[in-house]
């Protein structure tokens, strides 16, 4: 399979004013720090992590949707899109679309559903009015909305239906990649299943590639082929689904997986909960060594000396830990 997306040394930093600093004293918060990953065509890569880990920033940087200073390379079908000027982004935006987390705030309340879905076609393509009408009608059908709902406003839909509108909008330009930023976390549990099933059906029907941002590991296990675990801006583990869930190898991944409450009695009995104490470090004042060392249950002296690199521990599994370098 070809690599549709290749991310190399992606770094995103935001200028912030240092507390107590003098006039013009500026420092940078590095939200995403030297991240590498690839996404194959037709596959789903998950980026998981907790609030502040940089997972959303990394994904939005790939869509050229962050205001921070972005460096590195983001190659879409072999072509780096980071150097492109704003006006040259149209072709890339047709190929990369986003489904946002909050279906309440990501739809313009003053636009009708059909206008919301049609908007990317208006701004990114030269299609005729009739072509666009046909595409919008097909999309409504594809995401499970009724044709008579086209003229309604967002407030007349339920949360799940609004997310369907957001999905139809993302599909309108026939993108290669869809970035799904926590697409179900704002929805009620029963509605989540409807949307997750829809996303999988659409992936099969349209041959879509997903970059899936989530903090819900159950959803990730269900949806994704490979997973990158982020902590404080770094990827700490990167593996295919089965390796990650059957053999988590970074202590943070282990803690994260063990923390998920489950109804599976066998899993509950077999999993020893690993509690990680305290809070993540201050992102403006990162420790010198491993960023997880202060909370890590197995940290040793060398962990606070030097930062571990992402290295293979076994086939299909990379881990950034001094104490877990298996190969």
């Amino acid at each position: 399979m070809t690599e549709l997306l290749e991310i190399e040394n992606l770094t995103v930093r935001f200028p912030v004013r240092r507390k107590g600093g003098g006039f013009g004293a500026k420092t940078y918060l590095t939200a995403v720090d030297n991240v590498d990953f690839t996404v194959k065509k037709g596959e789903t890569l998950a980026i998981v992590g907790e609030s502040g880990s940089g997972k959303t920033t990394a994904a939005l940087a790939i869509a050229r949707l962050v205001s921070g200073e972005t460096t590195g390379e983001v190659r879409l079908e072999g072509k780096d899109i980071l150097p492109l000027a704003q006006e040259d982004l149209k072709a890339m935006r047709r190929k990369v679309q986003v489904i946002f987390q909050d279906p309440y705030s990501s739809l313009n309340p003053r636009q009708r559903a059909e206008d919301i879905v049609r908007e990317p076609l208006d701004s990114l393509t030269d299609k005729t009015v009739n072509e666009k009408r046909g595409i919008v009608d097909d999309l409504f059908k594809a995401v499970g909305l009724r044709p008579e709902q086209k003229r309604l406003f967002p407030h007349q839909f339920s949360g799940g239906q609004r997310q369907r509108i957001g999905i139809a909008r993302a599909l309108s330009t026939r993108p290669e990649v869809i970035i799904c930023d926590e697409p179900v976390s704002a929805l009620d549990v029963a509605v989540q299943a409807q949307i997750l099933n829809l996303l999988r059906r659409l992936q099969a029907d349209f041959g879509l590639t997903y970059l899936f941002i989530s903090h819900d590991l159950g959803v990730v296990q269900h949806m994704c082929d490979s997973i990158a675990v982020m902590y404080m801006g770094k990827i700490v583990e990167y593996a295919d689904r089965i390796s990650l869930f059957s053999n988590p190898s970074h202590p943070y991944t282990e803690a994260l997986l063990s923390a998920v409450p489950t109804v599976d009695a066998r899993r509950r009995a077999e999993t020893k909960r690993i509690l990680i104490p305290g809070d993540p470090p201050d992102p403006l004042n990162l420790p010198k060594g491993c960023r997880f060392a202060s909370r890590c249950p197995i940290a040793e002296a060398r962990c606070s000396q030097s930062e571990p690199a992402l290295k293979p521990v076994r086939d299909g599994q990379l881990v950034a830990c001094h104490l877990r370098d298996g190969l």
Partner: protein
Amino acid sequence: MEPLLKVENLRIELSTRAGVAPVIDDLSFELGHNESISFVGESGCGKSMTALAIMGLLPEGIGKVASGKIIFDGEDLTKASEARLRDLRGNDISMIFQEPMTSLNPVYTVGEQIAEVLREHQNLSKVAAHNAAIELLDAVRIPNPKGRVNDYPFQMSGGQRQRVMIAIALACKPKILIADEPTTALDVTVQAQIFDLLRDLRDQTGTSIIMITHDMGAVAEMAERMIVMYAGRKAEEGKVQQIIEHARHPYTKGLISCVPHIMADPAFEREELLEIPGIVPGLAEFGQDRCLFAARCNMVTDKCLGARPPEVSFDTGQNAACWRAEEV
């Protein structure tokens, strides 16, 4: 032994522009001493309303107890005066809310907010209450409690704020702690810390816990019994493990299997998730004499549309309000 809390045929009506709707419709349940139960269901099914009714905090002028009893320690709270309820709240029954960001007062230090409860209910002096606040922060595992007691909420992380909320709720050693989605706004590793803390505190103090959640995994972990609510009515009640193994109401079954849970064996074939089609009905449909879940149910028959299903009891101690409970 008499249960600590006994709710009998509770009916709560909410007045809306469209008319009066029963947000809680004939709900009965019990909570034992040192027991942990969970209310489960989607938004708009009456879980939080039940909690607010027990606290005597129904939205004034809009919601009221129309009939039924809430008997706490032998006393019917639906008949209690406002002064008596104020005396109970935060003292014998306390509550922690979903949003630790907005439930603390931003202009008081966390120490002052913990001390306030103790001064109000236990007449402690300013100094004694301050010292007790430090001890409570220590009990909820805030590092360096002596220093942090003077922090304002904005100086703390989400998990720490929720710990402060727990410290406030537990300050007077309540008999019942109601936790309304206590970890929904928190990261999963922080959730694990909070659950661990709640379990330990319960072991030490014997407090009974009512947890409201939509996460079956959290229920499996925290509660002994669960009550599944749908559209203001009890759909199913029983021991957590038994319900997870064999739910007797199609709604419960749907709630359990519509969520992708992490499985012990990740190599399993990933099938489509079981969907519960549609959404919870609006208030206008509440209270009708039929099964309110019928429109979303894959086992629906004419009977379901004709009359409200009775509660069917099973030997396992489960009961389910479904005409076809025996076949589920």
